């Protein structure tokens, strides 16, 4: 089947078998490997991308469901000049160790900050509760999201 969608602001089309997941479409058709295959069944959140601004497990979504919709992946987050404040703070605060959960974690946080520019610690925790990290114990991840929120409020 054919699917037309927008990925990181660019119109794309692909011819794919109907059982293709969004994750597979991104990784194997468009070589956008920032979304990771951590479990392929929706447990870990490493494949999180934004579909029309909403964080989803791309391993649980069929590519066919994306017809006419807009997908944002980690590759689309930075502009030519600079990282997104989330990326910058994740980097500066040592919020990632192995980095495998990072793209999904950052995109879940992005949805949160777009809907809630001044989240509490609890709200940050709730927003990334579906993203597993095995390295950090989450402390520095929560710090980075809070700091990015602050930065974005100050310099919108």
């Amino acid at each position, binding site marked *: 089947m054919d699917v037309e969608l927008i990925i990181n602001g660019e119109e794309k089309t692909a011819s794919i078998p109907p059982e293709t997941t969004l994750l597979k479409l991104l990784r194997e058709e468009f070589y956008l490997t920032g979304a*990771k295959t951590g479990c392929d069944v929706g447990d870990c959140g490493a494949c999180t991308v934004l579909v029309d601004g909403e964080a989803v497990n791309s391993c649980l979504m069929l590519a066919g469901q994306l017809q006419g919709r807009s997908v944002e992946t980690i590759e689309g987050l930075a502009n030519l000049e600079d990282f997104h404040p989330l990326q910058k703070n*994740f980097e500066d605060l040592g919020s990632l160790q*192995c980095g495998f959960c990072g793209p999904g974690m950052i995109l879940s946080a992005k949805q949160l900050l777009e809907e809630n520019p001044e989240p509490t610690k609890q709200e940050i925790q709730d927003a990334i509760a579906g993203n*597993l990290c095995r390295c*950090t114990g989450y402390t520095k991840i929560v710090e980075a999201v809070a700091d990015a929120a602050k930065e974005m409020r100050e310099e919108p």
Partner: protein
Amino acid sequence: MNEIKRNQSIGVPKPLVDGPEKVSGKALYSGDFVPKNCLVGRIMRSPVAHAEIINIDIIEAQKLPGVKVIITGDETDEPFGILPIARFEFPLARDKVRYRGEPIACVVAVDVETAQAAIDVIKFEYKELPGYFKSKEAMAEGAVNLHEHRPGNIEREVDFELGEVDAGLADSDFILEETFNCAEICQVQSEPHAAIAEFDVERQFMTVRASTQVPYYDHLMLAKVLKMDESKIRMIKPFVGGGFGCRTESLNITLICALAARAARGTVRIVASREETFITHRGRPETDIDMKIGVKKNGIITAVDYTAIQRGGAYSGYGVVTILYSGGLLFGMYDLQAVRYKGLRVLTNTPPPGAMRGHGITDVRYAFESLLDKIASQLNIDPIEIRRKNYLKGPNYETLNEMFINSYGLPECIDWVEKESGWKKRKGKLGKFKGLGVGCGHYISGASKPVNWTGEPHATVHLKLDWDSSITILTGAPEIGQGSSTMATQCAAEVLGLDMSRFQILTSDSKLTPKDNGAYSSRITYMVGNATIDAAKNLRNILIEAAAKKLDADPDDVECLGEFYTAGSQDEGLTFEEVVKAALEGTGTITVSGNFDTLPESWGTKKYRGGAISGSMAYAYAAQVVEVSIDPDTAAITVEKVWAAQDVGKALNPLSVEGQIEGSVWMGMGQAISEGTEYHEGLAITNSMLDYRVPTIVESPPIEVGIIETIDPNGPFGAKEAGETSLIAFIPAFTNAVADALGVRPLDLPVTPDKLMELIENKKE
């Protein structure tokens, strides 16, 4: 000129040098290489736990369109394994299968669906044998041997007695004994195992990329099972999504992938599912511990007598080392003058565990610290005080098993957690169903005798200086997220006084970087850090020589200020670029080498067989206080707060050290509260991230980190281990807090609400 200062990189919080790739999604992990026309490999796995292989009929499967080749155990008769004394595992099973999920064939096809369709029509004929899923079953009289050369299914029995244990027990005023069961756990690192192998038919050359902590050991095992010359293999470690020990030995997936690529005469990738990653295992074995401690009335330990039985799975892996660590590493924390240990590593029909973070000692330390806590409460001694009474008489202490302790920060760690947690004021006063507990741990900074020692230095690092005044660090040290590349860059930058932006680092590519044993036993900071310092000093000497020549000065008078070299205040000096130019005149680009060797006195003991295993150049120490509250109706435990102090010698990068300690605490918490694998007739029923209960951010407590610096005399800038010790300390601190809250003590791990409820109920009765 007075303003010119050397750049400082050590002791300063530094973001990871590979951070930009990680936050931008550009970091490529082994499963991210998706070249066009790449074939995929899919592994067929045994449906039974123990059987003789009669036949694997691949004829029908081979006929399916899209199937390129199918390989079985016939592909190689060379076994692999991390320990030269225990190599009897084949990439694809031959003759027998010994655990459910063991690879028996690999289909190479154009896509996964085709490969799976082929697997579905492969006919596997076998004669089933009795399966043993618990240590006791495998050790029972009359049990069939999993391996003919391991009678009674004992992989290794360790027995030692150091000091007079019976006399020590007789001399004690109080003896307490308990048995503990610690569940088998898995690392559940974020990245599932993956490999991609490219076989160049014309050159008969193999290139392999794989998720590994030990590319060098992979290289050796690839050469062995492929029967290829080592020089015809290039082993590359891309970004790795965590390891925690499950990748410290060659995994069958990597070896199968290479065998498949050669058979298919092309490029093959295998990306394991999460379930397959669980099956590949190499986690922490289920361990049963029976421990007895004798103490004087004042709390001084007179003797320890204990047994540890480990369910070792179907193959040895690191098993022999694990069971030795479980004995040897009891030493070096407290002043023990009499210890008897019996360790049994048992072969069972379950996937083989390995060298998980806190290798070998975590469960034993848990038992010891639990028992010590119970003793303290029965003798009415403060749990912190009983630990103080038993401190090593050190530093500069030699244990009974000849471990040399050159820096010992346990007292400072204890002091820190006592103060910061408000222990004296709060202990016993938190109210009903709330508790505080203390626990300690220690761990090595690299094994002084590597498992595969050929006599070369323990670490070698190269620094390439080029015409553009950039320095490239070339190291085999596998960066797996622990921050080793940042650490090496900091060490080199510090010695040369340069900003870290002058450096690039290239890691773990066997054709470019010097050999390195890998990321395990917390060896990298200590060994590779020291080798990097050595290389940077050698380079600095070359630069000073060149500057002296150019300045017409004596090298002894030349001062290296990093960006500037000067031979006295009257001298105009030279910029770094000018010195580089001078240094490369006549020689061109140079590569300087640096090494590290462990000192022979750290090689451990000959007092008992295998005693050299615990030897290390330095040991890190940790103390933790954990605060819990328990819901009396559901027995749900909340970890309210953790105070975690660790003696890391010197925090080279405080940011990374904090992250390592926080991550260790959190992983220890997983083992303590919820994690454990379970099997039904050898079929693992916890092989997903939902069924295997890893904590999420919801269960994550606030962690206050105390970095204690004792400046180890031989560590790089005084540094020691930072990434494992705090995991060990959490578990007993947690169960001791639960005991404090309830007045009943959990002995078995994990402490799930159902088990805890049973304890509470039994207490009521």
